[in-house]
């Protein structure tokens, strides 16, 4: 069976849980920006949690199914329609051969995950079906979807009923405004003054229009003041420069000290800008659901808090599994 792409949406890509192991040569993890929503979409249709799905950002695609299928849409509130009839998000529904799946305007969040029983069956490249568009690697021909593409779908391992749903409390979406992103200060934190460090956490930032799978840029806070230094050999003369180094996922670089950029799943693996710290793993999914202009506060936490938050995030998925196992 296959899915015909009638309209591609703004930037729809094939993603799974990513491609670990190649960051040392500049190939990032990739995979769903909101991993919880991706896993939940798969569980709803009876797939393994890491099966390949479609990630649609801001605007949904229009798809035609060449065979009957079980489908679920999670993540952002991007309401699906079947031949024009409204369907519910975070819930499994049947699609009949020849039917068209389209989407209403985005109501909340930023990225929706469209899972189909059997999974999107593009070739596995370096252990993953995820699209890494910058390197033209994986996914469907290494790029976002275009009208006319035909996506192969795998054979469904199990058959599940329609109307299975994930309770609202288990969806793990950003809770309110401003969204709080928890940060462990570190890396090159010592490059900024104490006052700048206080300002970074005190200010309210806003998601800038430059927000994609590589990274999310934020603006609106006070520029960071640097501790004066003699530039080390190889670093470059700007106070925000370092000798090119690795960038952790979630690391917050601030070129020129003005606009922080949080690197995400398609991160550039390294470069020459200093970083003030790293968004904790539990809050990475939330970033994937932020629209431009959303107010955000960075909240300072320590390792213990980060690990507790990680555990809580994992328990949320355990609960989703439990609720769908019955």
């Amino acid at each position, binding site marked *: 069976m296959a899915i015909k792409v009638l309209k591609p949406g703004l930037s729809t890509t094939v993603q799974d849980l990513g491609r670990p192991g190649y960051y*040392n040569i*500049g190939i990032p993890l990739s995979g769903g920006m909101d991993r919880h929503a991706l896993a939940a979409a798969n569980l709803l249709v009876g797939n393994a949690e890491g099966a390949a799905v479609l990630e649609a950002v801001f605007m949904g695609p229009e798809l035609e199914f060449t065979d009957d299928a079980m489908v679920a849409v999670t993540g952002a509130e991007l309401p699906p329609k079947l031949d024009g009839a409204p369907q519910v998000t975070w819930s499994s529904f049947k699609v009949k051969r020849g039917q068209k799946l389209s989407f209403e305007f985005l109501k909340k969040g930023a990225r929706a995950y469209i899972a189909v029983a059997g999974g999107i069956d593009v070739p596995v490249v370096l252990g993953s079906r995820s699209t890494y568009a910058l390197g033209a690697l994986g996914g469907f021909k290494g790029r976002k979807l275009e009208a006319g593409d035909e996506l192969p779908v795998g054979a469904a391992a199990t058959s599940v009923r329609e109307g299975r749903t994930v309770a609202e409390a288990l969806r793990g979406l950003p809770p309110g405004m401003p969204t709080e992103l928890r940060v462990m200060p570190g890396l090159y934190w010592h490059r900024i003054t104490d006052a700048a460090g206080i300002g970074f956490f005190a200010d309210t930032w806003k998601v800038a229009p430059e927000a994609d799978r590589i990274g999310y840029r934020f603006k609106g806070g006070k520029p960071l003041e640097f501790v004066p230094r003699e530039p080390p050999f190889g670093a470059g003369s700007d106070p925000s420069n370092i000798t090119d180094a690795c960038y952790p996922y979630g690391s917050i670089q601030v070129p020129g000290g003005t606009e922080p950029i949080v690197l995400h799943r398609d991160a550039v693996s390294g470069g020459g800008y200093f970083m003030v710290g790293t968004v904790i793993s539990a809050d990475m999914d939330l970033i994937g659901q932020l629209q431009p202009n959303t107010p955000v506060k960075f909240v300072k936490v320590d390792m213990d808090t980060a690990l507790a938050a990680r555990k809580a995030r994992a328990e949320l998925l355990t609960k989703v599994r439990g609720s769908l196992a019955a």
Partner: protein
Amino acid sequence: MQTRFSFGGDEHIFAEVDDAMSLEAFFKSLFITNAVREAKIKGVTEICPANASYQVKFDPDLIKPDDLLTELKRMDSAAEKSEPVIATRIIEIPVLYNDPWTHETLMRFRERHQDPNGTDLEYAARINHLDGVDSFIEAHSSAPWFVSMVGFVAGLPFLYQMVERQRQLQAPKYLRPRTDTPKLTIGHGGCFSCIYSVRGAGGYQMFGITPMPIYDPNQQISYLRDFMCLFKPGDIVKWKPIDRAAYDAAVADVDAGRFAPIIRDVSFSLTEFNRDVDGYNHKLEGVLHGH
């Protein structure tokens, strides 16, 4: 050199061997990351050497962050005592310096450059106090370079020239990054050269272009069939200046599937290199050309 460790959130340990670039710092980073790879520590998922630093990604559900930090600190002090010798490769990369494609691009983005009235090569020659473009190309291509980091994007090598610090070529990045750089451009920023593996944004000065592909996600190119990225940290690169006719011939060879890069296995000793830089580099070049 005292390595500075920091957690990068709950999944990374970042280690800065030195804040300045040097072959000593790079070698230490390479040594420790090789040792970490060989140790096969449970829960470690990514091991990334960089120019003068390195990073280890881990799953904190499988290993406690503090336990991994203790282990890395132990390996870091052990690395101090090891002999700086590596088994590596030397690779010849043909370069058409001053090529028409990077020239077109640098003219298109001239208003973002420090010197709007010249070319990147002319500017780099002047600020490095060299007598014109030809002298600069000679300095760039006469001594070999270490691949001191692979990354930014897939397969892109950062290269550090194997000469004393006072002979290092240095140039700032563009004032504002370009939105376009031709694929396989030879770039330079700070003390690092690079080869752009894919077309895209970039801020490095542009000096030339190589006909030799270094990244092939489709794995069609003969020498990229086993793995899609050519470079590994620790590889040694020697630029070979070529003219337009040789460039066109090489491109035709690549297209016809008969391009054969010159790649030789070689052992490198930092101690012996430091004893006689030019003599050692001359020997390396001998390995490349089989004499």
